[in-house]
């Protein structure tokens, strides 16, 4: 099992003729994804690695039936419109790759998604991968690189950094711990789906037995996760890695992702670590400590992996 996507998930790519989109289309196909169509206005009739291109999402639905998901890889100015188009055409899982979208527009997309009962991952993310089944987005890169870093198994991964999603998966794989599903949730201040909002999915997935997360300064997402874990008495042990500790001393300076800035006390890594540890989440200081911490926590619960 896995969450959000399986080998049967069908999806489309909006902006499919763009440079990055062409790449990720090939990489996803090579990894076994079911891409039923792509959209670039004015380019109907072309094909990208055998995937037919249409002017509108509506035309794909009419011709090929309802897709489950969409990867949106269009310039920031057109992203909101593309996401609205996907939502109004019944698509329920949307991965937004695009970076630099003002947060008012992200908020609008998220609000409409909620009304339509859909889920947005991102923006500014590399997408979702259920190792050995399928991936949706640029996560892991070319299929060969993806197979090297990701392997099937019991660990769920969530990360505010796309690159660190692969670093963590690669470290887990190297230590003999495969992954159920890894989600690059995006590095912006407002994102479609936070750690806490993904937890119920992992909680309901019998294959997932522990969680690893990558987190960084800025925002309240770690506090939200800590609250969720406490309130719901989660069965899943969680190990977090906290990057950007140096930023605690550099208030108001922006490093890394758009959502990464220390403005108030709650944004600091010190405060986040304290909250997470109080909720029973172990916080690693180095990525390579994650596998052993997971094994220890699972052993305490007598769960075998």
């Amino acid at each position, binding site marked *: 099992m896995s969450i959000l996507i399986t080998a049967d998930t069908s999806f489309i790519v909006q902006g499919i003729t763009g440079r990055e989109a062409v*790449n990720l289309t090939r990489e996803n196909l090579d990894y076994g994804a079911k891409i039923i169509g792509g959209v670039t206005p004015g380019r109907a009739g072309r094909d990208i690695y055998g995937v037919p291109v249409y002017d509108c999402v509506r035309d794909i639905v009419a011709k090929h039936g309802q897709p489950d998901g969409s990867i949106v890889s269009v310039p920031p100015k057109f992203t909101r419109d593309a996401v609205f188009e996907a939502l109004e055409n019944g698509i329920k899982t949307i991965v937004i790759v695009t970076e630099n979208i003002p947060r008012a527009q992200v908020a609008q997309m998220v*609000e*409409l998604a909620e009304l339509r009962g859909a889920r947005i991952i991102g923006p500014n993310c590399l997408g979702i991968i259920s190792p050995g089944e399928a991936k949706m987005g640029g996560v892991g890169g*070319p299929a060969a690189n993806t197979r090297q870093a990701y392997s099937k198994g019991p660990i769920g991964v969530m990360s505010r*950094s796309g*690159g660190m999603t692969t670093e963590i998966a690669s470290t887990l794989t190297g230590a003999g711990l495969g992954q159920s599903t890894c989600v690059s949730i995006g590095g912006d201040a407002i994102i479609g789906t936070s750690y806490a909002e993904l937890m119920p999915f992992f909680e309901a997935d019998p294959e997932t037995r522990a969680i690893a997360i990558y987190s960084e300064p800025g925002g309240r997402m770690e506090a939200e996760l800590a609250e969720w874990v406490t309130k719901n008495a989660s069965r899943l042990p969680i190990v977090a890695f906290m990057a950007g500790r140096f930023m605690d001393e550099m*208030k108001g300076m922006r490093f*890394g992702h758009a959502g990464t800035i220390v403005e108030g006390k709650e944004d600091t890594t010190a405060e986040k670590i304290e909250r997470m540890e109080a909720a029973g989440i172990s916080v690693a200081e180095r990525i390579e400590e994650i596998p052993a911490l997971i094994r220890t926590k699972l052993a305490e619960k007598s769960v075998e992996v």
Partner: protein
Amino acid sequence: MRFYEYESKALFARHGMPLGQSRVAGSPEEARAAAQAIGGPTVIKSQVLSGGRMKAGAVLFADTPDEAAKHYETVLPIVVNGETARSVLIEEKSPIAQEYFVSVTWDGRRKLPVVLFSDMGGIDIEEVAETHPEHLSRTHFSTILPLSERVAKEAIGAVGVTGSDLNRLVPIVYKLMQLFLDYDLTLAEINPLAKLEDGRFIVLDGHLDMEAEARGDHKAVLDDLGIGDDETRQARPPTEFELAGARVNAVDHRGVAGNVVEFDGNLGLIIGAGGGSLTLFDAVRKQGGKPANYCEIGGNPSMSKVKNLTKLILSKPGVDKIAVMMNVVSNTRVDIVARGVIKGCIEAGKDPAEVIAIFRIPGAWEDEGFKILAKHGVEYCDRSVSMYEAAGRACAKLEAN
């Protein structure tokens, strides 16, 4: 991107919000003239981006134009939180009956904008939240429904304000919500929002912050305010080195080799990507390394971008070695980065084998990359060496120097 008070007030005025008379002064003479024109008592306020200017003594009151000129000279040189004043604002001193607080900001958890309103303005709002939570309301509003005065009414009414005060406050709060969305702000705050003795309300002090991503969409407004692209308005102004880094990144559109932040150490860092850079910077500092810079490469930058970034970092006085490190890469190519840093070293007149302390970028095209590094005698490692260990090796090499 934060606005100065006088810029914020220009934007408040555009949206028809009530303000006292004020003028920016650039000399004591201008301060005197401003006070003369305003007539009556004035407030002399240092224009800085950081808070705490009242505490620093950079806000003074004057009864006469001569006093305003004198206060100008007192206030201007005062350094507030390490920041020197850009100019001084001379504003009409109004007789205040009560102070309110209102701000609009984003709630990242609810993913909605939220209006914070309090009838206890003028003081630190975090303190109000802790000591008098019933005097602070939080009202979220939709970004897809048409903007509505209802939200403003509920926000104000929630702390018990009613009668004509409520009706006079609603349009001000509503306009602040409008301003917040119109200009892609991340914070629109009025504190204090003053009720005058005659019953009118005016914006006494305000603070606006625009989202960096949206600057391009608001060029006309920024031009009107005289804010150029090179004004980053970060916690401190950019250094020459940082501006040079931005220029390297702007040369072509392929990938990122930028976000350079200057530090005063001796280890140059070519690191990436977003999260990887944070991780590696921590790892270097934890192991006693002294970074000369922070930076981010990612998104598959061109060879020449990496080369020019390498040359820039090597040109910084005191940089003895560079460490080239990233998380396992997916679309950035190991071989292209390897070519860029080696060529950068050679063009800077240095031996790559000598000056590159460690190269740790595993992932896409690593076999080609490792061949290039081996050929030039550069120490490199694959994913079996962790980011932390790689950073440690670089630190050890500098110590041995």
